[in-house]
């Protein structure tokens, strides 16, 4: 027999710790969110807060509440530009930037695509570094554009041609391809090792 005190409603999500535990174990820096005390300094510092569906603070509280779907499909985790304002200001020393990237990476691994554009660009950027040990800007751009498919890719290239030419005129971008750094193979070894050891990586 059930007894109730107070106005009982059928609504309301049940708190569930399983997602929080998943984050602590599998997400890079995930365990640090335990220390969050919900002061909101991160949200107040974030220059992209306006564009985010949930502020970093709210992402953390959603994780604790066990709302897996909302967190992993959130746009916010992909929007972090690593300005580090939040990480510097957090009174509890939570590395908010690392957590946001960790979550983004984890979401992608779990098959979520909160912002395909960001994910695609991130992947091409990473590939470039892995291949050259540095960034070749026109190469990253080309691959990112072509990642949309051949037709739309050429269209995007044409749209951005003037900017590219402008950058070349100002010597912000070279005409010739960049060469790989010296001994790029050992860099790749290091990156492979880091990947094997860690919970994720940057997006």
């Amino acid at each position, binding site marked *: *027999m*059930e*007894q*109730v*005190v*107070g*106005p*009982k*409603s059928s*609504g*309301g*999500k*049940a*708190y569930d*710790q399983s997602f*929080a535990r998943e984050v602590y174990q599998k997400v890079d820096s995930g365990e640090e969110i*335990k*220390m969050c*005390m*919900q002061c909101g300094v991160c949200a107040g510092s974030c220059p992209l807060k306006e564009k985010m569906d949930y502020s970093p*603070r*709210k992402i953390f*509280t*959603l994780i*604790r*509440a066990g709302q897996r779907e909302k967190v992993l499909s959130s746009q916010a985790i992909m929007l972090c530009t690593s300005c580090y304002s939040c990480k510097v200001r957090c009174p*509890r020393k939570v590395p908010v930037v690392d957590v946001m990237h960790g979550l983004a990476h984890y979401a992608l691994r779990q098959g979520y695509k909160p912002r395909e554009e960001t994910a695609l660009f991130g992947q091409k950027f990473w590939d470039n570094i892995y291949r050259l040990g540095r960034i070749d800007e026109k190469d990253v751009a080309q691959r990112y554009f072509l990642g949309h498919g051949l037709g739309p890719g050429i269209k995007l290239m044409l749209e951005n041609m003037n900017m590219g030419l402008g950058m070349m005129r100002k010597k912000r971008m070279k005409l010739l391809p960049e060469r790989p750094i010296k001994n790029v193979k050992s860099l790749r070894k290091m990156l492979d090792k880091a990947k094997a050891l860690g919970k994720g990586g940057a997006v």
Partner: protein
Amino acid sequence: MDKKLGVYICTGCGIGESLDIEALKKVATKEFKAPVCKTHPWLCGSEGVEMVKADMTNEGVNTLSIVACSPRVKFDVLDFSPALQDRVNVREQVAWVLPAGDEDTQMMAEDQLRMGLVKLNKSTPPEPYLAENMSKTVLVVGGGFSGMNAAIGAAQAGYPVILVEKEAQLGGFMKTMNKRVRPPYKELADVDLEGQIKKVEAEPNIKVFTAAQIEKISGGPGVFDVTLSQNGSSVTERAGSVVLATGWKPYDAGKLEHLGYGKFTNVITNIQMEEMARQGKITRPSDGKEVKNVLFIQCAGSRDENHLPYCSSVCCLVSLKQATYVKDQDPEAAVYVLYKDIRTPHQSEDFYRKVQRDGGIFIRGEMTAISEDGNKNLVVEADDALLNEKIRLEDLDLVVLAVGLVPTALDEMALNLDYRQGPGLPLTKYGFPDSNFICFPYETQRTGIYAAGCVRSPMETALCAEDATGAALKAVQCVESTAIGASTFPRSGDMTYPEFQMQRCTQCKRCTEECPFGAINEDEKANPLPNPTRCRRCGTCMGACPERIISFKNYSVDMIGSMIKGIEVPDADDEKPRVIALICENDAYPALDMAGINRIPIDPFYRFIPVRCLGSINLVWIADALAKGIDGVILLGCRKGDDYQCHFIKGSELANTRMEKISETLGRLALEPDRVRVEEISINDYDKLPVILKDFMDRIKELEPNPYKGF
């Protein structure tokens, strides 16, 4: 004593440039016949001080009027005790706020000097009140953690201590505690009460009475006569001061049915939780199974208008401690804390961090409903303020209500004071026996009785220890001051006390009723029976007395009345009004000084008279002033009401009540009631003070000049 007056005018700090010093000297030498009157460009320098001291030894000057800066500065340098002395403030209140060389500036300085000289004329050197057989013993009431700490503190300082505990054993509430959280707030610590008790028992200065009650306390500081009853017999001991450390009681959880208490077996209080932890294992009360999911509900009945309106300060830390019990028993157990605000003062924030690191889940919000299924599992529904959603917590084995603290001062007559105003301590709005929380911690509204620990304010154990030491030191200060006949704070060191001219007393009882400290008892015929050691020298009795029979050696109705009469009032045609500002020495006077330091101009038609407290203002002064042709009177004092800042608790409130009645008198004199105003001001309001003064002066200028001028 034959007085020989010496007037010393300092011309430094801009005073010399602002005023006509020769004219000022004439006031002293011609009007007041001062035999010695000297000026010095830097009176507080060693040369100036030596000059005064030389006059004291060579010329026999024993009454000094120092015309210089505010008495609040250079008080240590310009101290010529034991001579009778007074400071005339012509720097902060004249030279720095009025135009230099102006006629009105000069008149103001001269009037201030006249008032200062009248004051000296009417003062006599104080003779301290010394009671017979004064004791320096400290009585500590309550043998809990705070009480024991206070006893040890006073004993180690070298004072005999009587420690009274109502139960058979020392220890108080701490006996029921499982673990403590103490500095550095990283881990749980053992309670170690035995060590504390042994320390008390080993201390030769402490006399312990357990299973004892206080039947009566009569007398006052230095001469408290304490009647104790123990095992049916009575003992009388003499004590010098009292530390009250009777502690607290948990809030009655029976009133928390809306949180499910009493309705569901698995809803318990933090007190029950502590008991369970002390027994060894934390289990569900319904079936004895180990707990897997625990919820702590913070502010259970606290910060709630229908229950305890205040924050009990320790419940957050207690819940964090108990969360650790659960996690220590089973690291996999889920611990939820539903809170309004986590309040972990000082370094105890570190313990909050520890519980977070251990995996405690903190939910900010308020419980809306609680229900129980057939297996006695609880479900709590809440509004989550941070998610802005309704949430549920399911399968809870245990819900712990963090109930707050209620001070024992509220319902226990632990002291049984034999005072005119009742056996208990007067309490402030939440039931704590404080007198002025900001300025005088430990101080209750009964002189020589100091509260420590949770009876004074909710606090955790480390703070209790600190508090107990603080109160013990206050108690020591009290017995030492009383032994030489000096007042305790706020008028620390004041050797005067009120003297009653009993042959003129009409037994009106105003002084006995209105004394904020219950210092004056009365006999069957309603004659006042003063207890000078209980007195804090505020002068509220002096302000109350309609027959004006109460006075101090250096503060009396006649003195201030004569000062007012000493002011020169120009004719109505001169269009120079005169307004008297009676300013409280505690807050308003320093605020006025600060306005002076900041060189904020004030009106030159004011005449400032410092008073000990607005409560000491006798209505006759106002009548005197208005009858002399003074155009208005403004009273500047501390805030009154529930959040009073009055240093003597009721002084400003009483002044206000008395002033409400004066409008009648003014009506009889055919004067406008607007001529008298009371304003509240705090010490940091120096920027508002000139505005208040200007506003009042504008109103006075709107009125016709006082028709009694020139009579």
